[in-house]
């Protein structure tokens, strides 16, 4: 059936209806916004996984300077060196520890520089020694046993497995993700509302045709099908356009982020397994538009005798 024939046969002339003509554009814009919000939420998921994994594979051992450091500086330095060496030995002998290295002064100074400035003499402050520990996996090390063993060789040492920071980070990223998903939900609901209002506009604009169909024996379902088909077509048209633009924007943002050369913990692009979620969005919008149009028409027709 040619497009001309199909147009000629459309029982209700939706193409002459301004609200009907505007609907694909509105749905397209909303799908674009929802697509970006969904991509953001999925990217945050990637970030959370990546950062969490990175932190789960490392620990830090902090050895504070001895309390009498101000008395005999050299003796104190020698004592803390010995403590660090003992702690390193314990760590390197522990199952599940891939590596354990004491951070050199230069590295500690670099870590403090953003807060204390470049001109500070680290020797003027009682700084702790830090040991960076790489572990084979999140549960590779028996932490209570390691803490006990460290306590015997370095009683003041503090073992930080980043659990608290990791938990806070994941909570924060999860909250951001929820905000992203809430934006998706709000936009999808707004799209459904647009469909409801466009359908109501269509019912008013085509009242005569609808009444005629009703009088010649069309069931409510038959009339609703005209509207739901129109809503499905318009939302698929707009939704596919919107999601393609959103997808292109996400790719462009990812390439832009990569071009900055920033040391991001995860590339600002969607994982392969995330793209289907974006692809589902216009289909979900179309189904919602279909159902919203059907419900609106059926409710309205119930007022007819």
């Amino acid at each position, binding site marked *: 059936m040619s497009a001309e024939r199909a147009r*000629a046969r459309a*029982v209700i002339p939706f193409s002459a209806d301004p609200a009907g003509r505007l609907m694909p554009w509105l749905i397209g814009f909303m799908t674009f916004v929802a697509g970006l919000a969904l991509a953001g939420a999925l990217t945050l998921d990637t970030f959370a996984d990546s950062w969490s994994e990175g932190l789960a594979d490392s620990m830090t051992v902090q050895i504070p300077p001895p309390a009498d450091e101000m008395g005999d500086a050299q003796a104190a330095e020698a004592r803390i060196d010995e403590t660090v060496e003992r702690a390193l030995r314990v760590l390197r002998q522990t199952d599940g520890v891939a590596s354990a290295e004491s951070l050199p002064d230069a590295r500690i100074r670099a870590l403090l520089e953003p807060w204390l400035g470049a001109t500070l003499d680290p020797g003027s402050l009682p700084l702790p020694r830090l040991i960076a520990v790489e572990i084979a996996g999140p549960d590779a090390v028996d932490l209570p046993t390691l803490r006990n063993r460290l306590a015997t060789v370095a009683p003041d040492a503090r073992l930080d497995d980043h659990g608290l920071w990791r938990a806070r980070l994941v909570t924060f990223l999860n909250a951001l993700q929820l905000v992203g998903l809430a934006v998706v939900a709000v936009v999808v609901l707004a799209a459904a509302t647009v469909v409801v209002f466009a359908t109501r506009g269509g019912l008013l604009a085509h009242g005569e045709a609808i009444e005629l169909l009703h009088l010649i*024996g069309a069931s*409510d379902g038959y009339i609703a099908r005209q509207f739901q088909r129109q809503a499905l077509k318009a939302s698929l048209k707009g939704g596919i356009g919107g999601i393609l633009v959103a997808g292109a924007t996400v790719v462009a943002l990812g390439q832009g982020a990569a071009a900055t050369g920033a040391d991001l913990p995860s590339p600002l692009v969607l994982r392969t397994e995330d793209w289907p979620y974006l692809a589902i969005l216009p289909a979900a919008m179309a189904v919602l538009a279909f159902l919203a149009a059907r419900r609106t028409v059926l409710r309205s027709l119930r007022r007819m005798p």
Partner: protein
Amino acid sequence: MIRFENVGMRYGAGPEVLHDVSFELAPGAFRFLTGASGAGKSSLLRLMYLFHRPSRGLINVFDQDISMLRRDDLPALRRRIGVVFQEFRLLDHLSAFENVALPLRVGGHGEGLIRKNVGELLEWVGLKDHMNARPATLSGGQKQRVAIARAVISRPALLLADEPTGNVDDRIAMRLLYLLEALNRQGTTVVVATHNQALIERFDYPSMHLEDGILHSRDVPGRGPEVSR
């Protein structure tokens, strides 16, 4: 076919526009429905084509008490009733062919049957050469014939025509009445609401006369099997 018993009707909380209307039409009847403007002809027709429910009384259509029917049962009954509206009510964006085909599409008939039946009917009403014409390009008489063709395409048991000759000249009015008479001879019950006294006298079928919402009937002996009270 159709029976009204003490039917009253009002629009919303307004005054009653039909009072105690009672009549019965047997299958194959032909009736004129007459009355001055505002007498209630259109309201009576609306009740007959099931677009309104009565405020009181009983309406029985095709042996079914409509007060007992669910809303979902009504479309099937409406498909057995053809209606020719006074102002045609053709869909301007559809061709004559598609306008006539509408009841068949609504009834879920196949494309082959639609092509055959609509083509034949448009030829019968003399519009074979105007199948693809839009209503805006047709004359009043041609539009009326399209409206009649649409009303009868699904071979309704009951045909209701509201002032079918109101917008056409006498010559075309006569042709339209011959058309309705031919349909009646094929078994369709026909009710024609009209002001045209000459037409009523020329065809001399029984008539129902409405005056201030009250129905008066005038039977013509020997004309049709209908019963009127």
